[in-house]
C-alpha cells in the first residue's frame, strides 16, 4: 500500500499544521491560488516572479452549499452509494482571497453560516489514498 499523498502536487502541505500553498508577488504583495500562474495577476504589476507562501489556515465562510447528487466525472465519489457532502468558499485574511473546498467529513450545511470561522484540514479525497484540503467548522 502506497503512502497517502496529495491528489495534486504543490497545492497544500500535509504536516500537522497543514496549509494551502499560494503564491505572493514580491513587488506588489498580491496573493494567488492555485499556485499555477507564472506572473503576478495584478494588471498594474509587471512582476514575472511569484513566491510560494503558505496561506492562512483559518478563514470565514463567504458562502456554502452541498452536493445532494453525485457530481459527474472526473469527480470520484468516496463511498458507494454516494453520500452527500458540503462545500464552502472561505475568505482568508490578510490574503483577501476566497478559496473553495469541500467541508470536512461529518459536517454539513447545518454547521455553517456566512461569516462562520473554519479551519483547513487534510482528508482523503475519495476511496483512494489521495489527500485533499477541506474546511472544518470551528464551531464558533
Amino acid at each position, binding site marked *: 500500500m502506497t503512502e497517502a499523498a496529495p491528489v495534486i502536487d504543490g497545492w497544500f502541505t500535509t504536516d500537522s499544521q497543514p496549509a494551502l500553498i499560494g503564491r505572493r*508577488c514580491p513587488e506588489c504583495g498580491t496573493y494567488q491560488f492555485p499556485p499555477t500562474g507564472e506572473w503576478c495577476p495584478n494588471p498594474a504589476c509587471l512582476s514575472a516572479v511569484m513566491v510560494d507562501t503558505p496561506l492562512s489556515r483559518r478563514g470565514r465562510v463567504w458562502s456554502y452549499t452541498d452536493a445532494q447528487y453525485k457530481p459527474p466525472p472526473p469527480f470520484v465519489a468516496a463511498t458507494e452509494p454516494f453520500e452527500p457532502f458540503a462545500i464552502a468558499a472561505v475568505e482568508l485574511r490578510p490574503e483577501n482571497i*476566497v478559496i473553495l473546498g*469541500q467541508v470536512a467529513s461529518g459536517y454539513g450545511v447545518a454547521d455553517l453560516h*456566512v461569516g462562520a470561522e473554519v479551519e483547513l484540514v487534510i482528508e482523503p479525497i475519495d476511496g483512494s489514498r489521495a489527500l485533499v484540503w477541506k474546511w472544518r467548522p470551528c464551531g464558533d
Partner: protein
Amino acid sequence: MTEPVAVIGVGMHPWGKWGRNFVGYGLTAARAALDDAGVAWSDIDFVVGGETVRNGYGGYVAGSTMARALGWNGARVATCYAACASGSAAIEAARTRILAGLCDLALVVGADTTPKGFLAPNAGERWDDPDWLRFRLIGATNPAFFGMYARRRMDLYGADPADFAMVKVKNARHGLHNPNARYRGEVTAEEVAASPVVCDPLRLLDICATSDGAAAVVLSSIDTARRLGRGDVRIRAVSTVTPRFPNTALDLPDIATDSAASVAAPDQGFRPSIASAAYEEAGVGPDDLSLAEVYDLSTALELDWYEDIGLCAPGEAEKLLHAGDTTLGGRIPVNPSGGLACFGEAVPAQAIAQVCEVTWQLRGQAGARQVEGAQVGLTINQGLFGHGSCVILSR
C-alpha cells in the same frame, strides 16, 4: 453612444430534447431568421456561429458548419466561444463588422445539444484545466455555485427559499404561451418546495435544465434595414466586458478569487459592470427599460440580476418580486419569455434566444406574453471565465 445596427430577422428551433444533431437545429433557426428577414441566404455576406464544445469538430467551427449546411456561398465566417456568453459574442462579431462597413447582411446562429444531467467536462485527464479540476478536486458542479450565490442572499439579505420558488412560479406562468419553450405548464410554490434539494438551498425546480435548442438573428446596417422595410428593432449596445482586478466574487468555475491584498476591489463588481458598460454605450439607464431577459440559471440568480442591472438596490430584489414589478403586467417584466426556467439552457443559443425574445416584444409580436408598449429591452448573462454578455435593444 454607439451607432445602432438593425435586427431584421429572428428565428428559433424550439428548445427540448428532439434527438437531432446540433446542425439540424441551427439550420431550422437560421432559415426561420432568413425568412423573417425576407432575405436569401445567398445575400448573407458574414455568418457567425456560437461555438459548442460538446459536438465534436463541427461544433468547434460552428460558423463554417452552418455556412456549409446552408450551402457554401463564399461569405466571410467567424466562430465565437465565450461559454454562456457565446451567443452575444457572436452577435457582437456581426454588429462590429456591420459598424466597420465590412458587412451588409450578417447571419448569427447558435445551436446545441446537451446531455441530460449536470454539465460536465469533456473526456480526458487535464490537471491544468481549472474547469476539470473543480470537478476532480472538489466536486463543485454548476448548481453548487448557484447554491452558494443563493445562500448569500439568505444569510446577507434574509431571503427565503419561498422567494426563490416565487421566481419559478412567475417564469412558468410567463412561458405558458411561448411556442419555443420546452416546459409549458404552471408550477406551484408547493411543487418547488416538494422537489428534492440539489445543492442547498436550491431544489430541482429552482435550477434550470439543459436542453437542445437553436436561435438565429439576421443583422444589418440601419440603412439596409430601411431599404428592406425592416428598420424597427435596433441593437443599441453589446457589452462583452471582462472583470477588473481584483475580482472578489467567486465566479463559476473558479476554485479561488483574485486576492485583494494589494489592490482594493473596484467599487462595482463584475456583474453590475456588465450592464453599466451596455447602458453607457446605449445612452440609456435602468429606468428606460420596458423589459429584461436575464439568465435564470437558478431562481435565486434571477434576483441577483435585478440588482446587478440596477432595477433595485442590493438586497431589495425580493421586495421587487413580491410587488409584482417583474411579472408580466408589472412595471418592468423580467423573463417574459419564461426564461431558462421554461427553456432549459442550450449554451451557445441562449443569449441569441434572449435577443429574439426582445425583438418579438419590441415588434409587438409576443402574443399572450406581450409587454405592452415595449420600447427598450435588455438581455444579460455571464459566461464562465469572465465573459460579460449584455445586449440593449430598442424600437
